[in-house]
């Protein structure tokens, strides 16, 4: 299902380390409309774990995480 998901906003933080992925994800969430799907793609391992924590704190929905060639994609719905 995650392969076919259509993202409304893509946040590319490949190569960035903490705290940049979390900060960029939050900026995208602020700009997004209710119902929008935000895809965060990155490579920093700690961020892959921190972003789902943030999704929980912000009361958003975590649709899933896909990983290929060491790049993770986190799908969030506002």
């Amino acid at each position, binding site marked *: 299902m995650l392969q076919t998901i259509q993202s409304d906003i893509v946040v590319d933080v490949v190569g960035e380390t*903490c*705290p940049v992925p979390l*900060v960029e994800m*939050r900026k995208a969430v602020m700009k997004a409309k209710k119902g929008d799907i935000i895809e965060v793609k990155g490579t920093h*391992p*700690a961020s892959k774990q921190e972003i789902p*924590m*943030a999704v929980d*704190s*912000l009361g958003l929905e975590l649709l899933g995480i896909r990983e290929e060639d060491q790049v993770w994609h986190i799908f969030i719905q506002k």
Partner: protein
Amino acid sequence: MKHERIYLDNAATTRTDPEVVKAMAPYFTETYAVASSQFSHMPGIQAREGLDRSREVIAQKINAKPEEVVFTSGGTEANNLAVKGTAWAHRRKKDHLICSKVEHNTVLHSCQWLEQEGFQLTLLDVDDEGFVDLTQLEKSITDRTFLVSIQHGNQEVGTIQPIEKIGRICTDRGVIFHVDAALSFTTLDLDVDRVQADLVTLTAHKIHGPKGVGALYIRKGTPIKKMMHGGYSEFDLRSGTENVAGAVGFGRAVELAQPKYVQYIRSLQKGLFEGLKKEIDGIRINGPKTLSKRLPGNVNVSFDLIEGESVVLHLDMKGISVITGSACFSRSLEPSYVMMAMGFSHERAHGSIRYTLSRYNRMEEIDIVVKSCKEVVEALRKISPLKG
């Protein structure tokens, strides 16, 4: 977030008291004349009265004379004027100045700029609680020294410096003593005669006053040159149209800063310290362990195994505003210079969190902050790459 935003970054700036805003309002729409126009028309006289009334209130608070209080655009300008203004007044006569390694950047960078311009600078060490080395201070003063600049309370770890002892040393050695009291004004007593201070920096926005206004106390007879040219206002020490509304707000903020609030903030500080220590393992206190030796609203701790920036971001998402000594937000890898001067490791400096309280905080908020910190620290430790 089931609660309203909890703001614990009051050392950065504070909420302006609505009474302050009320006092300032007429000076925007009714009494808006330039105070220097007092010799020309009635609105100018009224503006001058507002400015001078506030000057008296501020002077009284530090046991100074009104004509020794010069309004500035804030603490930054007051610190720049104190350091550069005295340097310029001593040019070609004396060329050595002293400050500590933990001064606010506005003092530190002003001193370092003078060093680049040919002055000699001594930076004093501090111990692991942030206290200045007084023996080193005494040894550092020479017949070339014109200024010692030491803050009253530290912006990050809250250390209250022994300014009365430093004042005595400076008086004995005939050196100008500047105290940056931007963080301590109204929460700690400061009597310019008892402290033997020649220059004192004050600012409004850290005491629930407006941003954009501060003051420099200048003891009568202190050699100092003005830095802003183009007029004769503020006793010919600071040119520029007077910020009458700001000054009036500053004065009102001083009037509203009652001693009862200091006791109240101390009780919140104690509650937060004890709550964090009781609930969270692997916590280190940064700054003095004895609360009476810290600024009343300051709590600064490091959590083992996690980065401060992660804690800050996750607390923000829980509706709590604090800051970290880690400089990663600015993309610089350098941790807080204050923490490094205190001899801490990079890890401890990067893990530090500063909570600063005000009279607007409540004890119920402290309970929420402790609970939220515990949750965030535990969750971050589970995913920490630093754990063994």
